[in-house]
């Protein structure tokens, strides 16, 4: 049964919805629909799209690889200082990304305390595609940790105990029991990390710089093209919008289903 909400609530709810939808309409209204197919295949547009897909996929994969074990530890292991570890893991969620970029530069840059050591090994991250992946990983990792941690907490621990009593070792249990049961969480974490990595701007431009084909991902291209070729900026924004809607569509069961 549904009650009629107070008028003021409806007014504010409507303003909130308008506020969210107007920018999208603005984008669609200015979109260069006529030459769209032609512009989509332009070399520089393809370069930025390709680079963004590559770096965000790498960042999402690394975020799962590193974030899921950390999530498991946070959910299942008791140790002193756990609250601090969780706070550190979630810090990039609240840290302005550009600060993350500065911090990465000071740690992993050529003169940074880790970066100078990496430089001896011949590894340079700033101004490289790998650097763009590192910047995206930094901001995406917390999403993997919180999503998977919630998944692990929801698992029935007795399943693992049962597997153990039946003689399965920890790795067999992980592979045959835990991971399959965690699949939905891992999928959600992958989508979230990927979307966050795809949209990453501040840390990337600060840490990895801006060079078409190497570190100029879609958001950087949007920002810079707006200063010289606004039409291209709108087109690139449309691509990002389409990809974001695709993520929402994939996650519709998890995020858009009615809550009780």
């Amino acid at each position: 049964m549904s009650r009629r909400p107070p008028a003021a609530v409806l007014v504010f709810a409507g303003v909130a919805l308008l506020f969210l939808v107007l920018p999208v309409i603005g984008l669609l209204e200015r979109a260069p629909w006529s030459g769209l197919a032609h512009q989509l295949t332009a070399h520089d547009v393809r370069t930025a799209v390709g680079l963004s897909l590559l770096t965000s996929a790498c960042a999402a994969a690394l975020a799962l690889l590193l974030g899921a074990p950390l999530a498991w530890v946070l959910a299942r292991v008791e140790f002193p200082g756990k609250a601090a570890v969780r706070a550190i893991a979630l810090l990039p969620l609240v840290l302005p990304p550009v600060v993350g970029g500065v911090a990465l530069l000071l740690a992993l840059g050529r003169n940074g305390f880790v970066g100078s050591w990496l430089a001896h090994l011949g590894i340079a991250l700033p101004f490289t595609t790998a650097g763009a992946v590192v910047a995206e990983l930094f901001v995406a990792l917390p999403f993997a940790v919180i999503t998977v941690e919630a998944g692990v907490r929801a698992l029935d621990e007795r399943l693992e105990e049962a597997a153990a009593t039946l003689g399965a070792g920890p790795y067999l249990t992980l592979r045959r029991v835990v991971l399959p049961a965690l699949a939905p969480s891992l999928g959600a974490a992958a989508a979230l990390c990927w979307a966050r990595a795809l949209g990453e701007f501040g840390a990337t431009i600060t840490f990895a710089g801006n060079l078409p084909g190497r570190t100029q991902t879609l958001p950087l291209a949007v920002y810079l093209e707006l200063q010289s070729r606004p039409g291209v900026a709108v087109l690139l924004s449309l691509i990002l919008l389409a990809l974001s809607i695709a993520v929402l569509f994939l996650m519709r069961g998890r995020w858009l289903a009615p809550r009780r």
Partner: protein
Amino acid sequence: MKRFGVVVFAVGALTSACSGGSSGPRHPVTVFAAASLNNVFAAMKQPFESAHRTYSLTFSFAGSQQLVSQLEQGAKADAIATADRATMDRVPKRGPHPPPRVFAENRLVIAVRPSNPEGIRGLADLGRPGLRVVLAAPAVPAGRYARDALGRARVTVSPVSLEDNVEGVVTKVALGEADAGVVYATDTTGGRGVYSVAIPDDENVRAEYLADPLPFGSERDGGQAFVDFLVSARGQQVLHRFGFLPAPTS
């Protein structure tokens, strides 16, 4: 209905609080200025305001091309100072008015890390493989000038990053992440943490700074007063102190 009015009032009060409101009897004059003018314009604020007691100056610094695109999107400013003429020509149409004034010039130098560990002596060295060179993006005046200079020196450079304003180039070199960058001579002075390597006249270019009052803000007269101040003896003195070259007398 009465409650609704209170809510509207509260929202109005909030938005006006967010946008700053008025401050004292002085009229705020907003000047959009090229990133390379950051230090020198900051030093102009005090002498300008003591000469014009009715105005208070606020600056917004960014790459010239970025300031123009902000104006195209409806940003409000009373004057603009760009680092080249091509960008000034892109300022949105604003009716008949006298041409923008050239108020200073600048030269390019190569910014290198302190003590010049790579031993860079001229533009030709920037083509060295493995050297990490950072330039301003082609849409930025400093980037366009740098390309002109490299073209004159017949050097092909593969930059590792294209920054969206010249300050970004200086910073990347100062942090030691880049080995060299092409910047304005005035960017390397005043404790920026970089050394400069001169570029000879036959390879160098003349960067011109232009200023123009704008009708988009609320204080067009204030914008005009600031532009007049730039070309006045006082303004030129400050520009000279920061290493800018005087505008050629036409």
